[in-house]
């Protein structure tokens, strides 16, 4: 398959794969920081299962990159520097105040909204990727969509339940929605090679993805009787262009701590 790609197509596939891999990798990392801190034990089990699936998706994408001649998948996930990462900035932001081992005061409303919006966006992309001209990516999308179905269901329940509860919960959720929307432009962006990516028919163009996203999420807001503005910005940076926050650098230091202690070693 690879030998059928032109140089330009190959560059586009690699670019897109980095976005997909880095997105799932960093949000799974943020999820893993929640371990043992979720609102109840049942949620701890469910959430860690979702984070684990998501790490598995990242591993599949990194594997495809390795097969395209990029470095090995552990290097790609653990050793690349902040400015080499292509994940959306929204997904790298900390879960809230504190450290995962010390005085964590994580924000469950932000986590629910971020995961809900991200799962919706991921679903739109995965549906489109099923028709990708690059068969290994289309095959990966089919596998991922089965697990994603449950993730989206899970976060939809939380999203609607907390908004329906009214009172403090609703207030926190609306605040989180504003925070997520302020960063969300990045998530559905295809980055600097978007033209090449679309031309190679790897995935639909940004505007089409965005339209599907709006349609899906608008229906949910309608049911909740909450107005949906759907205006997104990239407040803290455009991750697809390698712009990232301090939050990512700190995360990379933590998640690579053992790896970096001896990158040549087999762990």
């Amino acid at each position, binding site marked *: 398959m690879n030998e059928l790609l032109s140089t330009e197509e190959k560059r586009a596939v690699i670019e897109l794969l980095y976005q997909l891999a880095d997105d799932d990798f960093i949000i799974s*990392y943020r999820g*893993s*920081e929640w*371990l*043992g*801190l*979720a*609102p*109840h*034990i*049942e949620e*701890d*089990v469910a959430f*860690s*299962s979702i*984070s*684990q699936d998501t*790490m*598995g998706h*990242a*591993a599949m994408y*990194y594997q495809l990159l390795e097969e395209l001649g990029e470095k090995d*998948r*552990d290097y790609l*996930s*653990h050793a690349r520097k902040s400015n080499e990462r292509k994940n959306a900035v929204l997904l790298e932001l900390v879960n809230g105040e504190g450290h*995962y*081992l010390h*005085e*964590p*005061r*994580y924000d*469950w409303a932000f986590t629910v909204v971020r995961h809900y919006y991200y799962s919706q966006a991921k679903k739109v992309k995965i549906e489109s990727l099923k028709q990708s001209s690059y068969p290994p990516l289309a095959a990966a999308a089919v596998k991922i969509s089965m697990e994603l179905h449950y993730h989206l269901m899970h976060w939809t329940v939380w999203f609607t*339940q*907390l908004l*329906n*509860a*009214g*009172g*403090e*919960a609703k207030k*926190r959720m609306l605040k989180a929605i504003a925070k997520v929307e302020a960063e969300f432009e990045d998530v559905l962006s295809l980055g600097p090679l978007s033209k090449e990516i679309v031309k190679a028919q790897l995935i639909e163009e940004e505007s089409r993805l965005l339209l599907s996203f709006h349609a899906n999420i608008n229906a949910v807001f309608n049911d909740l009787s909450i107005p949906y503005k759907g205006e997104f910005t990239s407040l803290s940076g455009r991750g697809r262009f390698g712009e990232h926050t301090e939050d990512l650098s700190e995360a990379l230091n*933590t*998640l690579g*701590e*053992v*790896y970096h*202690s*001896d990158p040549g*070693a*087999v*762990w």
Partner: protein
Amino acid sequence: MVSKIINHSINKDEEKILSFMARIEAGEKIEADDWMPDEYRNVLIKLISMHGISEIMGALPEKEWVPKAPSLKRKLGIMAKVQDEMGHGQLLLRVTEDLIKPLGKTREDIMEDLFSGDLKFHNVFHMEAPTWGDAGLIGWLVDGAAIITQTNMLSASYGPYARALKRICAEEVFHAQHGEAIILALAEGTEAQKAMIQDSINRWWESLLMFFGPGDAKAVGTSKQDITAKYKIRSKSNEELRQDFFTKYVPRILSLGLTIPDLTMHFDDQKKEWIYRQPDWNRFKEIVRNKGPKSQERLRLRKLSYENNEWVRSALSSGSENEAG
């Protein structure tokens, strides 16, 4: 007249206990809704709530290593393992909830008991896990030790616990394999990696001996051992389990070129038992009273998340009142 009634009810209770013990002797399983003596109920509540909360607190030392695991494979492995442990905690809390329901208690009470120190968790989970070697060692030897104590209760007279243990033990086997794989990779690795495992064994050895509890009541003052044996909840004694652990793991540890930090450790061919240095049982008592090196920090994590998510719990309960969902 009054004393006659009391006598009558005492006789009735005695009859109940006799027929209950006959069921136990016959190897029958007791179920949650069956009548049971208070002593039986209380020992189960103590045992199973401690087991359940230990699974949950036990996720915390490994939690430290989940984000830091050094490869995608290890990240996936340790994520799966810790998720299982939380699942075990959930399963066992549900078994406990059925036992405390007649006493008018709920899961909230279990959590309160944990925070107040009335409900203790396993000594090993009070200890530090400062290196990746510890993450491997916990899976290999702590889960290995857990398999030994838990398989000992697979035929427990209390049906819901026996069934939960069956599922748990099946998963524990994978945990031990996961831990062993980490340790084997380190053992075949660089000098620094090998040193990392030896360091972990030195740090954890005494805690592993303590894991099985004192050999007799004298060491710490009290023991549930006799009661659990009487009701056929467990069969082997603490010391027998510890000896099983040595038999299984001492040769494996030595075969990796590692040493055991106890020069007196050896198998006595005549007595047919392992001779070893006793851990400091006074220290053990301190540790399980939440005075271990990490006791307070880990309790703080649980407590903080409990407080921090108060609004979520109250939103969920108001939601279920509003629309039954």
